[in-house]
């Protein structure tokens, strides 16, 4: 089988935060390492590398995924949003704003993943009450805050975004 492997790289096109990229990579490269090491978007963190902590959460076509458990080749032609792509010309995204307002972070390591997971769950209509938010964030671990302020941040952002939509 060595023949199929020899010098085997693939060209992957992906759009990250609205910018089209083409990368020549080995098929085994994880999305998170391509984002961090090839595209130098180091806002997305690596915590566990085993799909447990959520620090590497990004949006794939608008939905949260753990980028340590996605191969970059799997997202060929797709749209990725990382924490770097959230803030707009008018400032922070409402979820980022809410984390600041509600003190939803301490050391900040879990925060990029937590914010991306929150953007997805609010968009999916899962941020209806405290219990739903806690359930929907169970794949994101935080070693500092005790979660209370994170949950308050998400509920507050959901409220603000609903009002802005109305």
């Amino acid at each position, binding site marked *: 089988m060595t023949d199929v492997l020899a010098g085997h790289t693939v060209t992957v096109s992906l759009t990250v935060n609205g910018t089209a990229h083409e990368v020549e990579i080995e098929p085994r490269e994880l999305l998170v390492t391509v984002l961090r090491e090839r595209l130098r978007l180091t806002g997305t963190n690596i915590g566990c590398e085993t799909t447990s902590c959520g620090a590497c959460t990004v949006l794939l076509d608008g939905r949260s995924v753990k980028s340590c458990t996605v191969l970059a080749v799997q997202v060929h032609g797709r749209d990725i949003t990382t924490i770097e792509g959230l803030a707009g010309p008018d400032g922070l995204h409402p979820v980022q704003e809410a984390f600041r307002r509600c003190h939803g972070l301490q050391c900040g390591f879990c925060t990029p993943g937590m914010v991306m997971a929150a953007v997805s769950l609010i968009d999916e209509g899962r941020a209806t009450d405290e219990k739903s938010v806690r359930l*929907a964030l169970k794949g994101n671990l935080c070693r500092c805050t005790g979660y209370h302020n994170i949950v308050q941040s998400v509920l507050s952002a959901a409220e603000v975004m609903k009002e802005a939509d109305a």
Partner: protein
Amino acid sequence: MIPAAFAYRRAESVAEAIELLAEYGDEAKLLAGGHSLLPIMKFRLAAPSVVIDLGGVGGLDYIRADGDEIAIGALTRHVDLETSAELGAAVPLLRHAASVVGDCQIRHRGTIGGSVAHGDPAADLPSALMALRGTVVVEGPSGRREIPIDDFYLGFLETALGPDEVLVEVRVPRRGDRPWGFQKFRRRSIDWAIVGVAYQSEDGGGGIGLVNMGPTTLRAATAEAALRGAAAPDDVAQLADADADPIGDASATPEYRRHLARVLLARALAGGAST
């Protein structure tokens, strides 16, 4: 932590995936959502030389009514089962089982086909298929065949899928508003089940599937027989582990798993759905 090197092939259709499987044989692995395969490849518990990505195969992502059954395409993701109003109305047990798999991010990636084909006894969806007496539809070089769920699991991570076959569809009978229950017991909400029980009532009895009570997803056949004989629910629940052969591990001893199965079946028979 990255997988060992492999060659990557992207199938554009089921026919192409079957051809690639025929070409590379045992060296190849199909890739759907990647949420069972990639973790074991990262730990180097699997090191296929060729990975055949099904991600580009169109037309395998559907939930549709087909006579008395609901047909679900193999690439349908857990989140689409969880949020399908049609599935919720026709087969609420399966909708619920999908909603307790892993976390939101995992459910955005994992597929029903991958979950069923992987053959992990700790997986949730296969137990629901067992309780529902579902069917697995596979396609290979010699065409399409339907495998009843009772004949699908042969051993730990071992199924009736041939090396050149692709799982294309899962079929389950409509159960509408008949009673059902699903119980998943674990210490932390993000964990796999230590033990799980799926129950679906049907004419003259009910189907019962067990999670993590042996090397494969299991049917609690003795308890089902008692149900058909109209035994009292508490007596039925006492038989939950009669056909099981649970292992002991860091989470539970075999005796504790047997105890859990009995308690969880009692709750499932009472219509309980754990989150």
